[in-house]
């Protein structure tokens, strides 16, 4: 019997229809689902230019309007209109309108991808789907056009890196702090072109909302994909909506890893990434007191129910001193946070709530900072100009830290509000 395979070697062999594969092999893969978002109209133009007429498998295509919603300009509105027309013309099975939410969150909620399966998205945070034990990888728009047309794409099977997390997080410390710690220790190139495969006894103690943060943020580590071993909590989450059977994939106990990183999370403090790179990470205590003019809670990284409730826990009975923008990752999150009372708590504290989607994360709209204004954000990237203004520093932290900082208008340890 063959042994010693990593998750990614097994998952890509399955998707390529071959018996086995090792790192370094180049395979033609047929994914279980492919998706795009506001970039769909541009992909359509490439698809038409190559002479293709019909999508090879429209029943396995998802499209979500999320990056600039509701449309902020006539050009953006025209872009959305072209996408809706394309969905009708091609009979695309899974289309999600303005306000339904961010692609990664919505596809997870709809159980359109399942453990052991393979998903490509024209979005760099597609490693996100490792939270449920799937292989997820971002591709460019030309590759998405090729996938629509042919249903297949070549991949070089990556080497893998094992990240072992042990211990229980302290209250107020989250998966976001784990992700920032990893990236800070090993830099933004630490997982370059690797499959990041998590293990350790911390994972089952994390809620599903928190688990998603880890593979999502591995995009900032240079990873090709990331993976958490799925357990019963994942299977239960998917059960109500799934439309096909699946077989979870786990790495062999003797799998060969190119690199390893180990972290005891029990002693981890809250972390923060300083401008202008996600690996400029320090303990929160080193940044406390820095003034901020804007706070933002949302995105595919930290816009889920638990994130909104963490903010509400901090902000209950408080009043923000700088503007606080809260954008739930999906309509389901917004509804649940409304029903739980978290949204009311946030509004009473002075927060502004906006339509589910990506919000100001990549500088399209809904919270672009003025020059020299600092933002503290629960997002994933703080590159120069990321939020639309070059000279506007961005700090990255957990929703607890963002909420506490909004109260003081300066970077603040949430401990005093918990």
């Amino acid at each position: 019997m063959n042994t010693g395979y990593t998750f990614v070697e097994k998952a890509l062999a399955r998707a390529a229809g071959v018996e086995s594969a090792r790192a370094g092999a180049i395979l033609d893969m047929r994914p279980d689902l492919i998706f795009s978002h506001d970039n769909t109209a541009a992909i359509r133009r490439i698809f038409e230019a190559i002479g293709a007429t019909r999508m090879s498998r429209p029943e396995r295509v998802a499209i979500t309007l999320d990056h600039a919603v509701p449309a902020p300009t006539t050009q953006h509105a025209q872009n959305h209109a072209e996408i809706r027309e394309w969905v009708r013309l091609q009979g695309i099975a899974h289309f999600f309108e303005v306000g339904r939410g961010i692609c990664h969150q919505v596809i997870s909620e709809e159980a359109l991808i399942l453990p052991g399966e393979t998903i490509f998205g024209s979005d760099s945070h597609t490693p996100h789907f490792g939270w449920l034990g799937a292989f997820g990888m971002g591709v460019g728009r030309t590759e998405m056009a090729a996938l629509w047309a042919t249903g297949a794409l070549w991949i070089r099977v990556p080497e893998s890196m094992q990240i072992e997390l042990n211990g229980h997080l302290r209250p107020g410390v989250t998966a976001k702090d784990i992700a920032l710690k990893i990236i800070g220790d090993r830099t933004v190139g630490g997982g370059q072109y690797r499959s990041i495969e998590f293990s350790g006894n911390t994972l089952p103690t994390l809620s599903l909302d928190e688990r998603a943060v880890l593979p999502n943020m591995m995009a900032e580590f240079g990873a090709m994909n990331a993976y958490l071993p799925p357990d019963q909590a994942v299977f239960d989450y998917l059960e109500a909506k799934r439309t096909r059977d699946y077989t979870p994939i786990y790495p062999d106990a003797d799998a060969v890893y190119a690199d390893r990183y180990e972290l005891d999370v029990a002693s981890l403090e809250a972390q923060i990434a300083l401008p202008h790179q996600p690996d400029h990470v320090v303990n929160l205590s080193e940044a406390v007191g820095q003034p901020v003019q804007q706070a933002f809670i949302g995105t595919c990284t930290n816009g889920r129910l638990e994130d909104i409730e963490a903010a509400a826990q901090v902000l209950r009975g408080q009043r923000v001193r700088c503007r606080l923008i809260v954008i739930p990752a999906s309509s389901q999150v917004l509804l649940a946070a409304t029903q739980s009372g978290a949204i009311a708590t946030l509004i009473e504290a002075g927060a502004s709530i906006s339509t589910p989607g990506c919000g100001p994360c990549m500088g399209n709209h809904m919270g672009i900072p003025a020059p020299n204004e600092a933002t503290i954000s629960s997002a994933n990237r703080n590159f120069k100009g990321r939020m639309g203004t070059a000279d506007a520093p961005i700090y990255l932290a957990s929703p607890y830290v963002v909420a506490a900082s909004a109260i003081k208008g300066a970077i603040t340890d949430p401990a005093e509000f918990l």
Partner: protein
Amino acid sequence: MTTHRVHVYGDHVNTDVIFPGKYTYTLKTPEDIAAHALEDLDPTFVSRVQPGDVIVAGSNWGMGSSREQAVTCLKYAGINILIAASFSGLYFRNCINQGILPIVCPGLNTLLQTGDTLEIDVTNNRIIAAGQTFNFTPLSPSVQAIIDAGGLVPMLQMRFLGYVDGYVPAGGKE
């Protein structure tokens, strides 16, 4: 052997400074996309770049977004070869799909300065710079075939149309 003027940059240059995200859903023509190349990294690049120039960078060039304009903005500005100590995985694939040759060759960005020249011998996989010779690993034949076709679009046009129609990918979205 061909001679090229170089533009030199450091490690971990990200796609937001190569092509800002705020333009990704609005700029469409090659001219408009090229006009914003490296806007938040090197605002003088666009006025200095000449066709045939190459970029020489450190490790992890192009980390971040999947947006293809981070490659096409350089392509439309006249860059056909990028040299880096390493590339982000997504950026590397986007280069190949646009017919831009990504050469992995560590050590050059600390040896050269913007405005210097180097020589590239793609037949023998070597670069001559500052009096030294650097060898690089060629792409696998199946990947090189995409570059040789001019990128993934012309390659697929041959498959679906039977000919290449000279299409310039319209700008876009990522």
